[in-house]
Structure formats: C-alpha cells, structure tokens
C-alpha cells in the first residue's frame, strides 16, 4: 500500500534526512543518552554505533560498486587517466610527423587514421587526455581556492566588504566571458600553468558567489557565535570553523566546474589562447583539425568523442555519487 512509483510520493530523502533533523524525527537517535543510563547498555550501544558506522561505509562502497552509473563513469575516467599515464607505451608517438601520409583514413597501421601532418590520430587521442586531466582539475581547484577565499571573506564579513566584493564580481560577471579571457590571457601570457590560472580566474567569480551564499548560511549558525565568544580571530573562524562545513556545496560546485573547465580549456584552444601545437590536446586538435571535418572526419571526430566521453564519465561519477549518498 505504499505509493512507490507514484510521481508524487513523499521524498525518501526528506523522510530519511529530515527525520534526523526535524523537530520530530522518525529516525531514531543512534546514540545513548549517556548521563544516567546503565553502563552495560551504553557499551552495547556504543559498539552498535561503531558497527553501524562501519556497516554504512561498507554499504556505500558496495552500493557504489553496484551502481551502473558510477561504475561506467569511473571506468571511463580511469581509462583516460590510464591513457594519460601510459599512452606512450601503448601507441606510437603522438607527435611523430609523417608528411607523406597525411589525412590517411583509418587503416591497420593507423586505427584512427592520420591527421594533417600524418600523425597517428589514435596516439594523439590517447595522449590528448594528459593536458585535460592536468588542466581541468587543477584549474577547478584553483577556482575553488580563490573563489573560496573571496566567498569566505565576503560572506563572513558582510557589510561594506561584502558589498564591494560583490559589486566587483557583478562587474566581472557582466563582462562577456570572452572579453575576460582575452584580458586574462593577454595579461598573463601562455603555457599550461597560465591556462590553469586563467581558467581558475574565469571561474572565480561564480565560485565565490556560490561559496559566499554557503558561508552566509553558515555564519549565523550557533557554533560560529560560540567561536566568536571564545575570542577566535576571524581568519580562524573562516578557515577552521566555517570552511569544513561548506565542503558539500564546494564539492558540488567543483564537479560542475570540472566539466566546464574541460569545456573552457577546449574553447580557449579554439580561440587560439590555449595550448600550443604540437600538443595533442583535444580542444586544440578539434580547433585545428576542424577544417578537415569534411574530408577527413576522423581527425576531429575521435578527439571530439574522447572529449565527450571524458565529460560524460565525470558527469556519471558525479551523478552516481549523488544518488548513492542521497539514499
């Protein structure tokens, strides 16, 4: 007689989570009220609690392993990580030019064909994972770092500090992203490190907004007040009290940004601001080989498919994690 399958059944998370936090939780408190209970019972309860923790952890791992979404994503991403690390042992050199065999269609010698300089597309596609897997995560981390600091400061101090920071962020967000990237890259120059910094900088305003709102939600919580009543310095409160409690939104924002970082790195390459040849970077390859799409589609479609698969893989992992944790 349950309403399972109905679109309008109550939300399991609501009942599961809300019950723990709500004024009348249905989920039972897991721990004993220690003050006056018989000792034996407490030990038992404690053991049960530890057991429960371990069970939960084991369950999560098992559930993740059983989740097709998560596993597919994991396999795809691990595949690319593996390729990034070991592609040079698996395939030919991604930069070996063979000017006499350019734009050759897929064959036994070149499974994915060759590109406009006669390089093996398979080798380049495999090796192309490297730059993305370096740039995107690092850029995301950087954006989280900067955005985190700005968001923490703005959200924690509020008032005039917040007002000024948010106005500046408004300005940056109002500027077309293309202009911002031209600005940043003109200022900084080029190279992998610069691209990481540039993408990190591009994402900083958005990230800092997200983190700011998370901080605002957190700073009025009572443990923050308790810290202030202890005479803690602001930096301590931000870094040690608030920060550990906004990891959830930070992780969510991070996974979203990760996908966009892949995207942005490719777009920067497309616009001529990204990596320099002969890097087998996917974005760069797509941008430069794009003109051969009609006559030699393999030069573009394989790296495009690789890019798409990595992105889908990341999204599958995010999705799978979210679903398993929310159960």
């Amino acid at each position, binding site marked *: *007689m*349950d*309403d*399972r*399958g*109905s679109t309008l*059944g*109550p*939300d*399991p998370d*609501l*009942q*599961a989570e809300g*019950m723990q*936090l709500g*004024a*009348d*939780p*249905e*989920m*039972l*408190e*897991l*721990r*004993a*009220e*220690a*003050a*006056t*209970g*018989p000792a034996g*019972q*407490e030990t038992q*309860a*404690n053991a*049960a*609690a530890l057991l*429960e*923790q371990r*069970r*939960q952890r084991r*369950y*999560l791992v*098992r*559930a993740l392993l059983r989740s097709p979404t998560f596993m597919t994503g994991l396999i795809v991403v691990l595949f690319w990580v593996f390729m990034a690390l070991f592609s040079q042992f698996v395939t030919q050199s991604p930069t070996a030019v063979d000017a006499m065999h350019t734009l050759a269609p897929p064959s036994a010698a070149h499974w994915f064909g060759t590109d406009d300089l006669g390089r093996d597309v398979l080798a380049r596609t495999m090796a192309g994972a490297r730059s993305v897997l370096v740039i995107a995560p690092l850029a995301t981390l950087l954006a989280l770092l900067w955005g985190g600091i700005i968001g923490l400061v703005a959200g924690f101090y509020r008032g005039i500090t917040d007002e000024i920071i948010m106005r500046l962020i408004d300005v940056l967000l109002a500027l077309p992203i293309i202009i911002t990237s031209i600005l940043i890259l003109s200022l900084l120059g080029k190279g992998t490190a610069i691209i990481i910094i540039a993408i990190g900088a591009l994402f900083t305003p958005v990230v800092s907004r997200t983190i700011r709102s998370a901080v605002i939600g957190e700073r009025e*919580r*009572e*443990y923050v*007040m*308790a*810290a*202030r*009543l*202890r*005479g*803690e310095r602001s930096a301590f409160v931000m870094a040690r*009290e608030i920060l*550990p*409690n906004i990891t959830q939104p930070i992780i969510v924002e991070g996974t979203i940004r990760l996908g966009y970082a892949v995207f942005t790195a490719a777009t920067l390459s497309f616009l001529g601001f990204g990596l320099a040849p002969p890097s087998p970077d996917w974005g760069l390859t797509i941008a430069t080989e794009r003109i051969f799409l009609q006559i030699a589609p393999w030069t573009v479609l394989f790296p495009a498919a690789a890019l798409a698969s990595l992105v889908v893989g990341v999204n599958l992992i995010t999705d799978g994690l979210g679903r398993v944790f929310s*159960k």
Partner: protein
Amino acid sequence: MSAVEQPVHTPDAAPAALDVRDLEVTFHRRGRDLPVLKGVTLRIERGEAYGLVGESGCGKTTLAMAALRYLAANGTVDAGRVLVDGQDVSTLSEEAVRKWRGEQIAMVYQDPATALSPAMRIGDQVAEVFRYHEGLGKAEALEKARESLRRVALPDPDATLRRYPFELSGGQQQRVVIAMALAVNPHLLVLDEPTTGLDATVEAEILDLIEELRGRINAAILLITHNLGLVRRLCERVGVLYAGRLVEEGPARDIFTDPRHPYTMGLLRCVPSFGMNKTDAALQTIPGTLPALGEPLEGCVYSARCPMAKPVCSRREPDLYAWPGDAGTRGEAEAEAMPADPAAYSPHHANPVGEGARHARCYFAAQVAEMPTTTPVLAASLEARGATEGAVLEIGDVSRAFKDGRKRLTAVHHVSLDLKRGETFGLVGESGSGKTTLAKCVTGLIAADSGSVTFEGKLLRATAGRRSQAALRAIQMVFQNPDSTLNPAWSTRAILTRSVRKLAGARSGSVRAKVDELSANVRVEPRFLLQKPGDLSGGQKQRIAIARAFAGDPTLVVCDEPASALDVSVQASILNLLVELQTNEQVSYIFISHDLAVVRYISDRIGVMYLAELIEVGSAEEVFNPPHHPYTEALLSSIPTLDFDDPHERVALRGSMPSLSDPPTGCRFHTRCHRVLGDICVNEVPPFQEAVAGHTYMCHIPPDELLAMQSAAEPAAPIEK
C-alpha cells in the same frame, strides 16, 4: 513476528474511523531494513479523539503516514492493515485514494508555515479542495472557502482569501490549514504536532479552536504529539508509542492519573509541574535513550531503560495486557513462569490480550505506581547557595534595532535590568519579543545601538570582538539548537580542547585533564569525546555545548532556550545539569525560554518581554502570581496543564503581535490587552508600578486594582499538581 488475525470488534458494530491492525512498517535505508512500526494495533471510533504520544522517533508520524497511504518510497508496509471507515486503504485505486484523501481523511501539520503553498493565495488553496472534491466552479469554490475560513474564526475572511501564506501569522496559518482539512467534512482528522513551534498563546488559541470545532464536526481525531498537555485537553483516549510498539493505551484521564507502563510513568514525571522550583526538587528523568532504529531488541522494548526491569523483561516481550485485568494477574504469572531457556519460549503474540478499555505492555503493570524515582541527588543544597549581594551584570537602557529593507525593526527598546552572582534571571515572552537580541547584546554577539552593559562594575565593549579575553571568558552562552551549536566538522574533544585553550588559557599538559573534567561535569562519557556532533544525541550535544560554555569558569552564562528542542526527559536532565553546575560553580544565568513552567522552575527572578520592552520584572513566584502584568496573565493562562481538575479560564489575547517596525503608541500591549482602561493606554507610556519590593510591572493599573481584577478572574496559577 506473526500477526494472528483476530477481530477486535464484532463485525456488526459500526466501522471505526480508523482501524489499524498489526501494522508493521519498515524503512529501507542504505541497504538496511529498519523496522519502524512493530505490530501496532489501534482503533479510533467515530467522533473520538485519540492521542498518540511518545518521544521523538517512536514512529508516531509513520503511523499517520501509513494511515494516509503516504509512506516514503523507501518505506513498506510489511504486515497488517489500515482500515479507514472500514475500508482497507491498500485496496483503493489511485483515483479512489485521491478522492478518499480530503473527503474522508485529512491532516493538519506540524509547521503551518511550510504546509501552505507559498506562492498561492489562501483563497485559492482552500477553494482547491472544493473544486476538486465537489466539482465547484471558481466563484462558488471561493465562496465556500470564505465560509470555511469563517468557520475557523479567521478575522476578516475576505481579506484573508486574497492573502499569501507569509502574510499571516503562525496561528492564522494553522487556522487556514485546519479550515482546509475540515473543508469537506472528513471522517478522520490527523493532527500531527499541530501546535509545535507556535507560541504558547497561539497554541492555546489553536487548541480552543480544535476543541470548539470538535463539537461541530463529526470527525474522529488522531492527535500525534509529544506534548502531554495537549492530549489531556483534547483526547478521550491515549496511546503511548515506544520504539515502534504501542506500550500502553487507555482513556486519557486514566493514563495521566494512573499510568500502568513504566515509560508512561517516566514521561509524566519528567514534565516540570507548574510552579515547581529548582529549590523544591530536581526534575525526574528517564535514563538512557531510545534504541536506535534497527537495533536488535530482546524482550520488552523498554527494558533497557526501565527502572523496574527484571531479568525476565529482556527475555521475552510482554503482551499488551488488559488493565486492570490480565496485566495485573496473568502478566506477572507469565513472568514468574518464564523458563530460563530462551529456546523454550513459545512464539508470543503481541496483540492485545483480553478485552478492556486499557492495555499495558508490561508484566508488572500493577507495580508501576510504586516505580522508583530516578531523581539524581543534588550535589549541594540549593538553599545554601543563595544569591550574593551586588550586581554582576547591569544592563542599562539598552536598545537595538535592525534594518529590514526600508523598515526599522526595534528588537530591544530601552531595557534595563541587573543580575546578581549565582542568580538565574528568566526571560520570557513570545517569539519576536526581543529576548534573544537582548541576550546577544549582553554577550556581544550583537552590538547594542545605545545603552550600556556593565559587568562586575566595568563597562563592556559592545561587540565580542573588542572585548578582552577575560570578559569573553566570563560571559558565555548556551544556544538553542543542538544541531548547530557544535561545529559538525570537529570532534567533541576538539571543540572542548579549543575552548579550554582559548578560555581557560590552559597549556597543553593541563588541557586534556580540564577537558576530561568538563565532560565529566556535564556527564558525557569520555568515549563520546572521540565522536563528531552528528553522532551524538540532541541531549549530548547540549551537554557538550554547556561544557564548552563552562570551559573558562564563567561568571555569567546566557542560556537561550537550551532545552526547548529536546524531548521532555532529555530536557529535564539538561535542566538538572544546569542547576547542578550553578550550585557548584556559583554562576549566574540569564535563562531564556518560552516555556513558562521551565522558566518558573529554574529562575530566581523573571523578566517578561513584550514587543522589545521589558514589561515586568520580579521574583519568579511574584511574577507568576497576581498582581502581574495583563500580558503575563495571558501567558500564564495559556499553558496546557496535565491537571484534569484545573478549572482555569484562558485569557484570550486579541489579534496578533503588532509589527516591531511600527509598535503601538502608549502602552505597547494595549492593542491586545483584555484589561485596557481606555485612552490612557493608547496615548501614554505606562509607568513601572511596584507590586512588592523588587517586583515591578509596566501598566497604568495600580497593583491593588490589578490584584483585585486578577484574583476575581481566576485563581492563582496552580502551584500544586
């Protein structure tokens, strides 16, 4: 657990409004099956009001949701049946369920603010019911909605129809929810904590309304609450739920006056009876906590916490015996005859055994009245403590306003008071009256706009950030919400260690010892120090929070509703702890609560706030006895008590609280006062009148006149239970 199908009532009897039989509900979470309801059987006759009580997490709401066929996707009914009006709800088609909900069964929810669709006008929300259940057109449905609102005594129903939920006060919102629930005359009305979160005065209003409506509607009521007072006022019969088990059931009066299950007894004893003071006795508590969901339980579900438990209790679960029949005789006999070898037990049946009005799931129901008390012995005599002379804290003419858009809300308006060492000053008033703001001005979490806070003769800086470490150490705070008071990312030990370092200035060698001492003082076992707050119960969290406040041997601790989010038994133990610490440490408290019984219990002096003003100050006893401010009078009268013989008339307050941005002229209370004199109240700010030395109130009515009025109207608030 096999449920033996057995008719509780003869088939020819009219079908019950709700007939739950051997209901078992299990939740599935992270790969585990967690039984929430274990073979619950209960029956509510037509027109009957049935109260289901128990601590948080007993399974009360799950029962209600199962009755409405609205379990979460991860919850399943494993066994048993739910019949509403004789109809098995599991057999209904989707469309039938839809019609059945609203027409035959309806619900009123815990938090009216979130139970109403925020973006839809009240009129549309109420009219919806008529449109979809009676097929009325828009205009007709709206007309009927107006009628419904009138029925729940909403002022100006026409205007209310056009309003949005957020424009209504909590009480008005709940009236709307009730109007919606009663729109199509359901046969069963489920009230799920209908007054939790509402102020006492509003709660009283809602109770009055429900009581009044009961006379006019034909619906049976299932009231789910942890508030025993509510049950006493509304219900004929009561069921007590513990860990998914119905442990006792019977007529309300009998249950409250003569409980026959140790758990029921424990619950009743936890509630501080009104008028009781900390100098009288420590509060009763129930040891231990509810078993965790899914925790394997042998024997009686309550045996682990039961002060009467005998070995037999944890071996086999007792049946729900009829009282005074089987429970007194057969139960004990069965317990006596219990073989020592568990393997020899016959599969027991957990259903009510024998006919009767009362049942208790205890072998030793007959002995419950003599259940030993578990009152902790107070460490030192409270009488000996006594407040020393000389003010520790003086609040001089403090005001504080907030900006809300263009509006300026005055949260604290020219408040002055003082506090002696070792004294507890209770601060009461409805939500939004400025209690917490005042407390935060004292601790420096909020800077006062004007006025002074003097501590031990020295003027304190306005904000905590500018105060000396000594001043911070001396004034600490315990917060209301146990879930956010501790940093969830830190281990309990880390929290206490940090506080000891910062507040006691202790060096590393002594820190550990000090942390252990603190946790021992608040009765938290050392092993819990390894855990994070998320793994602790609400009570434990509050204990840690208290330990944190006491880390630097404070002089003053501001307690902002430290126990109001906790179950009664936990609340009692927290209050006991505070009293004990005060006795040992000679600390002063500012104790904020909207629960008058609690404030009365713990406070030496009490201040009553209304609309940002402190309108009455005096000793606890004096404030709660006439002559007192008419507002205090109203507050007191709104407390639901457990006393069935309490004849007191409730003083109804008119309207809802005016806006802080535009407070009434003259006496701020005049818009709602039942003793308003006339223009003087509207035009002139009343003076402070002195009832007796040290007891002043802000009113135009002189003490003797007021005393006369109030004595005539009602007897003094009950002191004796």
